Structure formats: structure tokens, C-alpha cells
């Protein structure tokens, strides 16, 4: 298959491995955008998720609105924001952040909810303050589910950040959008391959983190993978 050969050839060009259009830099950008978007989402999702999970209040609202947020098409949001905010990082970062609020939020509040109420009750009855309860009991026990939420949020952003190249930012999406523009299929495929590899590596890292946290939350059980 010549397309495959072309793609291999694309990877073996030395130009691909250095400079501002090289894979390392684009990869760094991609990871950077992902981190920024997830951090921005966490700014909203963490306090909100802790509040909902700890108090059980606003839960239905949260379920409904995260459902609606999931349905929000990223491309629509991206173009809408780009028209309002112009090119630059803010539009794609906000659009991607919106994308990862639902899994992050759901991971946090459902994680906290899944903590055995008897454990929380007992902790409170021992004389723990609410802050103690959250920090020393709920958070460590919810960690596997929280990391599960983070895992799907990050993977989704990694995959979707490619679309952001549509409005002028860098990252691995550039290979795909530029490749499309100049009909260089090998480049599109090459970009896609790098994204997939990145996603797989990150996924494996998170799987390990999840196992570790599961072990931390319930050290007695043999470690096994849990999925959010």
C-alpha cells in the first residue's frame, strides 16, 4: 500500500523531527493545550464537584447540565467562540475546557457519592470537621473514580484538540488540517497516528495512576483496573 509507504516516508523526513513544525514541538503544543484546557475545566469542576458530592445538593441539576454539555458540539462552540474572541488560544481552550467539564465533574461528584455513607458518618461522629471529612476521607476514597473522570476528560481533549487547528492554533491538528488543505494524505495520516500514540500512552499512564489510587483507597484488595 503506497499510502502506508508515504506515511512512513513522512515520518522519516528529518524535517519532521525538529523546528516549529516538527513533531516534538507540535506534540508539546498539543500536550500544553490539553493541560491548559483540563486545568481551566478543573477550576470549575473541582469546587463544584466537591460541593455536589459532599452535600448531595444540586445533584439533579448537575446530572442534567452535564448531559446537556456532553451534547454540545465542540466544533459549533469553537466557531462561535472564535467569532467572538478572535483567533488565538482563548477560543479553543475554552471550547475544549467545556468539553471536559462533564467527565471531570461527574468523576468527582460520583466518586464522592460512592464513598460509603457509613464511613463518612462515622468519621463525622469521631469529631472530624467537614474539611477533615472531605480531605481525609472522601477525597482519598473517591480518587479512583476521580482519576477515571480525569482520564476520559484528557483523552477526549487530546482527540478533539485536533479540531482547534481549524481556527489557527498549533498542535498535532495542524498536520491534519494542513494536510487536508494541501491534500497531503500521508501527512493527515501521520498526524493521526501521532495523536493515537499520544492518546494510548496517556491512557496507559492514567490506567496505572488509577490502579495506584485504587490501591491507595482500598489497600487490602489486590490491585485491579477499575473503569469510570
Amino acid at each position: 500500500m503506497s499510502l502506508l509507504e508515504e506515511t512512513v516516508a513522512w515520518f522519516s523526513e528529518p524535517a519532521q523531527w525538529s523546528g516549529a513544525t516538527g513533531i516534538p514541538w507540535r506534540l508539546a503544543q498539543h500536550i500544553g493545550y490539553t493541560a491548559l484546557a483540563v486545568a481551566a475545566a478543573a477550576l470549575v469542576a473541582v469546587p463544584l464537584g466537591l460541593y455536589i458530592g459532599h452535600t448531595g445538593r444540586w445533584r439533579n441539576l448537575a446530572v442534567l447540565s452535564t448531559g446537556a454539555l456532553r451534547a454540545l458540539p465542540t466544533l459549533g462552540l469553537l466557531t462561535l467562540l472564535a467569532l467572538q474572541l478572535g483567533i488565538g488560544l482563548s477560543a479553543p481552550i475554552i471550547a475544549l475546557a467545556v468539553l471536559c467539564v462533564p467527565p471531570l465533574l461527574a468523576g468527582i461528584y460520583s466518586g464522592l457519592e460512592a464513598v460509603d455513607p457509613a464511613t463518612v458518618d462515622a468519621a463525622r461522629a469521631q469529631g472530624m470537621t467537614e474539611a477533615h471529612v472531605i480531605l481525609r476521607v472522601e477525597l482519598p476514597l473517591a480518587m479512583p473514580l476521580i482519576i477515571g473522570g480525569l482520564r476520559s476528560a484528557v483523552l477526549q481533549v487530546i482527540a478533539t484538540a485536533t479540531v482547534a487547528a481549524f481556527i489557527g492554533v498549533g498542535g498535532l491538528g495542524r498536520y491534519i488540517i494542513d494536510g487536508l488543505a494541501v491534500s497531503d494524505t500521508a501527512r493527515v495520516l501521520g498526524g493521526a497516528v501521532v495523536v493515537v500514540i499520544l492518546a494510548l500512552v496517556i491512557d496507559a499512564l492514567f490506567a496505572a495512576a488509577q490502579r495506584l489510587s485504587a490501591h491507595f483507597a482500598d489497600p487490602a484488595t489486590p490491585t485491579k483496573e477499575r473503569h469510570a
Partner: protein
Amino acid sequence: MNWALTNYERLLDLVWQHTWISGSAIALGFALALPVGWAAYAMKSSPHGAVRQLSGVTVSLSSVLYTIPSLPLFVIMPTILGLGWLNPINVLIALVIYAFAIMVRGVVDALNAVPPSVLDSAAACGFSRGQRAISVTLPLAGPVMLAALRVVSVSTVSLLSIGALVGVSNLGSLFTNGFNRNFPTEILTGVVLTVALALVFDLLLVAAGRLLMPWNSVVSAGGSA
């Protein structure tokens, strides 16, 4: 609003495009994932270590599919399938792949969530294997499968809009078009319609769940034990 009213014919057409492509992708994804997921579940309790591993591999492989970014998949699909460039089947199949990827895990999780004690008691009542699979395992896995299917439905409806970047007309076309002509109303209309469509799908699924699984919506007596 006015714009939407004067262009309702085009909008209707796009809604229809969006509905049939995403609807078929969801249905096909589910139809494919059910047997594959079931096989993975069945293999899990095999006495042979190799077969058990195959089960895990099936589930992991299907998750790998989900990490492929949608845009390039949409672009590559025509080359792989050899159908025409404009054929919406390209995007449809890409979406089926995503739906399948999420759903396989959903099916396996759902089957694993069936309480073993119920299966055991069914066997003790004298259900044969086949009877048990069809009239106990399948219905009891229903609620969790439905939950996964709802996730599939929402994400498929929203993913399809990216297909507009490769020229398959659907509600996403309103985004690219509105962007090119600096017309936020058009984009907003597209966003609202996409979300509404996802909501309609979701409501249909919930209603179907109520209808098929009446036991799942009754309030339980005990509450906390």
C-alpha cells in the same frame, strides 16, 4: 430566530441528515457491540487462560479504537472503504466505529453487573443455559447497557457535526458556514438543534427503557438496609 424561520427548509433537511446518519450509527454500533461484548463476557469465565486473556484484549482493543481522533478518521474513511468521496456512509461507518468502541465496554460491564446470585438461583430453579441467557442475563444487563447506549447516543450526535469539515452535510455544516460568513446566529442555531436532537434521542432511549424494563423504575421498599 427570523433567520431560522426563513431557512426552515434547509434546516429541516440538515436535521434529517443528522438524524438518519447518527441514528443508524447508534443502532449499528449497538447491534455489533452486543455479540462482541457478549463473547468477551463469555470468554472471561473460560477455563483456558488464553481465552480469558482474549476477552481482556477484545475490550482493550475496542477502547483503542475510541482514541482515534474523529477528523482524520472521517478523512481516511473514503480511501479505506473505496466508496465515493461524498457518500455519507463514510462518516456513518466512522461513527459506527466510535459507537461500537464505547458500547463493547458497556455491554461487558452490563453483563458483569448482573448479580451472580440471581443467575445461580435461576440455575437452581431449573433454567437451562439458553433460557437463562435470554430471559435472565439479557434483561438484567439492560439498565447498564441502556446507560452506555445513552452515552453513545449523545456523543454520536455531537461527533457527527465534525463531519461537516469533510463535506458531509449535517447540522455541523451550519458551523462552518456560519463561521465563514461571520454569522453567529447560524452557528447558534446549529448548536441548539444539535443539542435538541441529542436530547430527543436521549428521551426516546429513556422512554424505551421504561417500556422494556418496568422493574427498573419502581421505587424499592427497603431503601437503606
